[in-house]
């Protein structure tokens, strides 16, 4: 058979779900109604850390439509949410650990009645000591408020040890060090969290949930109800954005709805308000990092020391894997022979932090990429030249001693953005018009695709491909659409493998009872894992269909035996048959027209004791250049343009990939400049979109996006993963551009006007003093 050219992969097909979304017909969790449905609302802890003495619904009972109060006593299964550890109770019994934590739930006939009644439930409590600062939590004399390891108030700690760092620093020609901080980031998915739980007659529970991890929801609901997994069915509703925010916590929301539904024996809907979504759903961990780099006199990096602390909040949830990713990538995408990294996930009495696009990397990438620029400046090298000298290339070793394969285009990415942005001309320009100073800055990053060593047991995925009698195709997967375009990309991959026209292929949203546990849709693993599972399922079907097609073409007079399959058509000697005809003939011959696929990620060899080995199956890469205008009188920074280049392997759908990249860049820029969640005395003070500012159309920079496709042979049609790299490098590129514009180094995110303004003032004062 002739080598097949790609017909479907690599083309900008329109979204499969575009029409229903454009017409407002897409049904999100809040839009679904069921007969006899009741509504739940949460009763929340009003103080940072409390001992619960009593909960009373005396006043709540008077609200018309009130049905019942639900507390931990109503939990029939285990009162511990199974995430990594078991420290987070579904509903607290004695101690609530953060303001906003769900303490109890109220069920009522309408949503408004439920909310009203919940606001009238009284909690009698005693205040307990609490900790707000993660560095305080790590001190020996801190009160014990949490923690799941042998260290007090610590959920996880990791280390990477390589070479002789002390010697490297002793012998270094250049040394730099710095302390950097980053604040929370709120996902700000436009659809808040929500779940509907429907009791089934066999004692089971069906859940309709907005989630990017339906199987985590199965885990949570089965545990809370104390029922077997085959009685829990999770149907993913159209999901209005995830960004990691719908990774672990939807399981908690769904479990709460399920506990209520089990108690009242009727369907229960639980939809979060924006305020409570802010107060108690996961966030990007605030980060604190102290980093040191050493270099020899030619400008080669020789050593790196890192101490990195994440503010994990009141429960461990998935801090350990977030921290693991941050640890592995903490020294940057450079070849450095001597490394000493120590990282900690610290407990505080605040909202539990979890998954967020970038997953522990943006915080540390901001720190190390800022410091790399300081080192280049100290040596007197151009930041691009310095990076090109030290960046990882194919065949070279990462911090954990992982040898990179040929699918690594980092240096080419840097060259691409350098050229497109006009870096060489602009970097020494320091253009100033009145009080507006222009500057340019670069950053690079690498991102281990998939769950890696810390999540290796979950790194598998399933799919089912079903060809119907009329030639239409159903693709069921375990990985979720949340806006990124998975339904479309999966259909393209199925189309390509089967040679089925795109319009005949439908990808279903996840139903946990149809496809085995495929792990979470996170870590930029959706395309890689789900795509490979689809190929596994479609391959035997392809073999069967292609054989049928060959027979049909020969029957129709084909003689050469050379069949070409392309764009849904099979062709021989100018004679054609359509995919539909072939599928119908397959059914006539009583062939098996439905197959399952199962893909397991390659083993990764990482060892936890010394932090050495292969940490992830493959890496994606990015280089970002930001151009900014800083108002030196007010400190206000405007990002004018971002040039970004990505190596994420084969691009399955360029239009969707570009959109995902633009969205990631803006989310990164918004975190860099504006987003500033604040706590005062343990209470979140700005849980709304007025006081927590996200970028709007007016803030949007100009985007210039380049894909350099370094193919990954293990990937589906040689794709890697791309969800997260667009966000990670934005903050340091912007910070480096501010430094280039007005000579000040801002060491904390967000890069607020007052910080820039104060730094400029101090710099000018220092200049005058001289």
């Amino acid at each position, binding site marked *: 058979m002739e080598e097949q050219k790609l017909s479907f992969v690599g083309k*900008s097909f*329109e*979204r499969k*779900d*575009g*029409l*229903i*979304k*454009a*017409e*407002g*017909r*897409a*049904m*999100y969790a*809040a*839009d679904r*109604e069921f007969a006899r449905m009741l509504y739940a609302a949460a009763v929340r802890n009003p103080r940072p850390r409390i001992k619960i003495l009593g909960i009373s619904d005396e006043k709540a009972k008077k609200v*018309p*439509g009130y049905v019942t109060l639900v507390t931990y006593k109503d939990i029939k299964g285990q009162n511990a949410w199974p995430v990594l550890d078991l420290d987070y109770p579904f509903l607290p019994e004695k101690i609530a650990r953060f303001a906003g934590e769900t303490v109890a739930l109220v069920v009522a006939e*309408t949503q*408004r*009645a439920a909310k*009203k009644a919940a606001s009238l439930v009284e909690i009698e409590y005693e205040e307990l000591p609490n900790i707000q600062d993660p560095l305080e939590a790590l001190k020996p004399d801190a009160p014990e408020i949490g923690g799941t390891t042998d260290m007090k108030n610590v959920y996880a700690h990791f280390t990477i040890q390589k070479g002789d760092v002390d010697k490297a620093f002793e012998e270094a020609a250049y040394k730099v060090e710095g302390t950097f901080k980053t604040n929370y980031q709120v*996902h*700000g*998915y*436009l*659809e*808040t969290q929500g779940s509907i739980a429907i009791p089934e007659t066999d004692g089971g529970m069906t859940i309709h949930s907005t989630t990017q991890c339906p199987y985590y929801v199965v885990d949570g609901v089965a545990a809370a109800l104390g029922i077997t997994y085959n009685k829990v069915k999770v149907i993913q509703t*159209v999901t*209005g*954005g*995830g960004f990691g925010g719908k990774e672990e916590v939807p399981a908690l929301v769904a479990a709460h709805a399920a506990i209520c539904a089990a108690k009242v024996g009727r369907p229960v809907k639980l939809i979060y*308000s*924006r305020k409570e979504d802010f107060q108690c759903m996961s966030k990007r961990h605030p980060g604190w990092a102290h980093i040191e780099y050493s270099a020899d006199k030619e400008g080669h990096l020789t050593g790196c020391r890192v101490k990195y602390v994440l503010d994990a909040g009141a429960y461990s949830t998935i801090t350990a894997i977030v921290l693991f990713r941050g640890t592995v990538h903490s020294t940057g995408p450079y070849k450095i022979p001597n490394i000493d990294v120590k990282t900690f996930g610290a407990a505080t009495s605040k909202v539990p932090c979890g998954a967020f696009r970038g997953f522990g990397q943006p915080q540390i990438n901001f720190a190390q990429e800022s410091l790399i620029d300081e080192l280049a400046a100290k040596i007197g090298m151009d930041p691009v030249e310095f990076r090109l000298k030290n960046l990882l290339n194919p065949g070279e070793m990462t911090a954990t001693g992982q040898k990179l394969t040929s699918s690594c285009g980092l240096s080419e990415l840097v060259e691409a953005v350098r050229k497109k942005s006009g870096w060489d001309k602009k970097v020494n320009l320091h253009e100033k018009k009145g009080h507006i100073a222009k500057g340019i800055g670069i950053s690079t990053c690498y991102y281990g695709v998939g769950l890696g060593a810390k999540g290796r047991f979950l790194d598998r995925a399933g799919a089912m491909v079903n060809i119907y009698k009329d030639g239409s195709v159903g693709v069921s997967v375990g990985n979720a659409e*949340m*806006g*990124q*375009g998975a339904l479309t990309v999966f259909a393209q991959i199925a189309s390509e493998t089967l040679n089925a026209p795109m319009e005949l292929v439908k990808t279903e949203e996840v139903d946990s009872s149809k496809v085995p546990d495929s792990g979470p849709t996170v870590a930029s693993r959706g395309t890689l894992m789900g795509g490979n599972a689809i190929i596994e399922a479609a391959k035997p079907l392809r073999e069967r269909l292609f054989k049928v097609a060959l027979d049909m073409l020969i029957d129709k007079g084909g003689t050469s035996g050379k069949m070409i399959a392309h764009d849904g058509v099979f062709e021989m000697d100018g004679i054609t048959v359509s995919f539909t005809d072939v599928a119908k003939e397959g059914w006539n011959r009583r062939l098996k027209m439905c197959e399952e696929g199962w893909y397991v990620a390659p083993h990764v060899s990482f060892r936890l004791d010394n932090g050495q080995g292969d940490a992830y199956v493959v890496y994606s890469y990015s280089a970002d250049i930001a151009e900014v205008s800083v108002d030196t009188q007010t400190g206000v920074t405007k990002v004018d343009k971002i040039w970004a280049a990505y190596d994420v392997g084969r691009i399955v759908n360029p*239009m*969707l990939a*570009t*959109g*995902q*990249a*633009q*969205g990631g*860049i*803006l*989310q990164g820029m918004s975190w860099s400049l504006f987003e500033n969640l604040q706590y005062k005395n343990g209470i979140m003070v700005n849980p*709304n*979109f*007025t006081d927590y500012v*996200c970028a*709007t*159309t*007016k803030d*949007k920079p100009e*985007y210039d996006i380049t894909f350099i496709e370094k193919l990954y042979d293990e990937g589906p049609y040689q794709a890697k993963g791309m969800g997260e790299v667009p966000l990670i490098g934005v903050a340091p590129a912007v910070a480096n551009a501010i430094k280039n514009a007005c000579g000040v180094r801002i060491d904390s995110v967000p890069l607020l006007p007052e910080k820039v303004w104060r730094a400029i003032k101090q710099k000018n004062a220092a200049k005058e003093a001289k």
Partner: protein
Amino acid sequence: MPCNETMKKDFSVLHLDCTVNGKHIQRDVPSNRALLDFIRLDLGLTGTKEGCGEGECGACLVLLNGRAVNSCLMTVSHIQGKELVTIEGIRGRKGGLHPLQETFMKEGAIQCGFCTPGIIIASEALLRRKPDATLEDIKLELTGNLCRCTGYEKVLSAVETARDKMAADPDYKEAE
């Protein structure tokens, strides 16, 4: 779903008389019924979304006499005698897809889709008011619509394409 009992007791009943998506509607509603609840729960038009409930995100925008308003900040009494259009009532002049809907799909301006109805409503309001809206006009109009997925680039260019399409289409010119 029935209206909240407490509201019926505390507030007067409004004999609502208005037009929703071209259909004449007459019914009794508590006068303080939140407009968003009326649209979503009473009329079952779930295309209008609640993103924040506080007028911050624009997901609940509807057209009231052609102007885009946050339905989460209003009550049913605000629509008395007026013409309300939700995303379900947005159609092209010949009954098919509206050019905004077409270009949003074609140009990749939709991702998770939760903000999409609000953005299409805001854009429609702008283009009705100002058929030759510039990119700056569009940007300004859409500052009230948060989108966390797209980075706004494809949204803005899709509105521009739709504007040009509508300007070139005699059906739309006539209507203005």
